[in-house]
């Protein structure tokens, strides 16, 4: 298979297979979670669920002082790579075109040097999270295979995207093909690993807030 054939496969059938698995996996898992339902709470309500749930979705975004002091590296690097990933994924011109072709609408892009800087920050932050995970004794004890797998799945598309943009190591078609294949690997495994938190995060926060709201306590 030549590099152009590989690129054609990655842009066509490969992407179709990966995106179908991604969509199907996410939908099945969300249905499964939502249909589990919750046991009826027989206790008398001392507050409202909805407002507390919605409030918690936002309040949990800001770490409290004690947590920040205890896990500053995790929080700072975590925020850096999440924001970096968002900017790189959703505000670079080629990615917007990609999404526009699928969802039918686009939005303005950021200049390339800004995207480039964000990619570098994301790469540094992801490396920092890994180093922290491996050097911090508690973190290392808690680390399992899935944690490392999801790190690799997240890191590869950013790294290959950076290399593809700067044409480092291989020819442009090969780099683009490798970048797409790394994204496809991420898409395939996304619903079946903890990466699913991108969808369940706000659900979980809402539940936490709603439970506290029902009890009439702060969440």
């Amino acid at each position: 298979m030549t590099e152009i054939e590989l690129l054609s496969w990655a842009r066509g059938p490969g992407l179709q297979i990966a995106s179908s698995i991604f969509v199907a996996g996410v939908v099945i898992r969300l249905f499964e979670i939502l249909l589990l339902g919750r046991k009826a709470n027989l206790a008398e309500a001392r507050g409202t669920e909805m407002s507390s749930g919605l409030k918690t979705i936002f309040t949990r975004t800001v770490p409290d002082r004690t947590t920040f002091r205890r896990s500053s590296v995790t929080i700072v690097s975590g925020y850096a790579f999440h924001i970096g990933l968002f900017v790189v994924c959703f505000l670079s011109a080629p990615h917007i075109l990609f999404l526009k072709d699928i969802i039918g609408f686009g939005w303005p892009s950021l200049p390339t040097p800004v995207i480039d800087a964000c990619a570098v920050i994301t790469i540094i932050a992801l490396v920092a999270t890994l180093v922290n995970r491996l050097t911090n004794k508690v973190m290392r004890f808690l680390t399992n295979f899935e944690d490392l797998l999801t790190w690799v799945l997240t890191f590869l598309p950013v790294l290959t995207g950076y290399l593809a943009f700067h044409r480092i190591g291989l020819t442009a078609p090969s780099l683009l093909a490798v970048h797409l294949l790394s994204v496809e690997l991420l898409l395939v495994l996304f619903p079946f690993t903890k990466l699913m938190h991108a969808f369940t995060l706000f659900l979980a926060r809402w539940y936490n807030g709603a439970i506290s709201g029902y009890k009439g306590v702060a969440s």
Partner: protein
Amino acid sequence: MKKDLSPQGGARMTGSLGEILRSQGVSRRSFMKFCATTASLMALPPAMIPMLARAMEQARRPSVIWLSFQECTGCTESLTRAHTTTIESLIFDAISLDYHHTLQAAAGSAAEAARAAAMAENFGNYLLVVDGSIPLDNPGYSTIAGISNLDMLSECAKGAAAIIAVGTCATYGGIPHAYPNPTGAVSVGDIIKDKPVINVPGCPPIPVVITAVLAHYLTFGALPELDHIGRPKAFYGQSIHDRCYRRPFYDKGQFAETFDDEGAKQGWCLYKLGCKGPTTYNACATTKWNNGTSFPIEAGHPCLGCSEPDFWDGGGFYKALSMPTENISKSAVYAAAGAAVAGVLVGAMNRSKQNASNRIHIKTSIEDLTK
């Protein structure tokens, strides 16, 4: 000046290349300028210019046999239809083009006799230039004088010093090779494995690349350094995107959205209109076309990526490189619909499991615990 490349037509030129060029009215200054340009194009050090000039001047006319297979003659047109006579075309005139069935005056058995004679006289030393792909499904799809393309190529390759595949059809199969490839078209490199094959792709390729490859061969007696798919690195070493004068607009995020919007009028980047410059390696952005006038992007059209293999099947000329080539939305909707049904079934199964557990659950009372 009317060019006459046929061995039968016009006065057959003799002597060294230098003598021929002087007889054509090319001044020493023009010749040295050409040598300097060629050397710089091929990334040769300046010290090589006198060597190049000496070798070119003293070179005897190399015999060239040009075979045209499944092609559109665009490559020949590109090389011979320059607006004005250039020094490149004069050098091209000065090679001994012993067989080229589009350009030669001879026809039929006389033409084939000329080819046989050239091959016999220069066995082991002639250059074989090929444009067009070779059909393998049925030899009858393309024949010359009743000889299949495959047989003619195999026969001519035997005595060739080197083979230059010209155009994307000869180098990578080109348009005949495009899906569904009805003739089973393949490239020269797919067939010839025991001779050096230099690929000069493009639809058509840039004329100066051919003359520079010839100049390199005349000077060093060898072919230039090639990349991983057989192209001279000097010309195919950098992508169109990296050398494009519209690159600053790409970096700034300024794109033409349609062919007639303000961005297009301002000369902004054509990436969104399907430009394949980022994955295409060729010299269009530097050497340009029509005696350095412009190149497709300069004329307002995205690069088609014609010097890359399978450019015809690249998912559409006007589809941006980052866009999927298949209909992802459709497959995603089907996947989501199927998954929703599966999700409900899985949820129902979980519920029934939950209910079954509740049914067999035995409540423990205080009395049970104090027994």
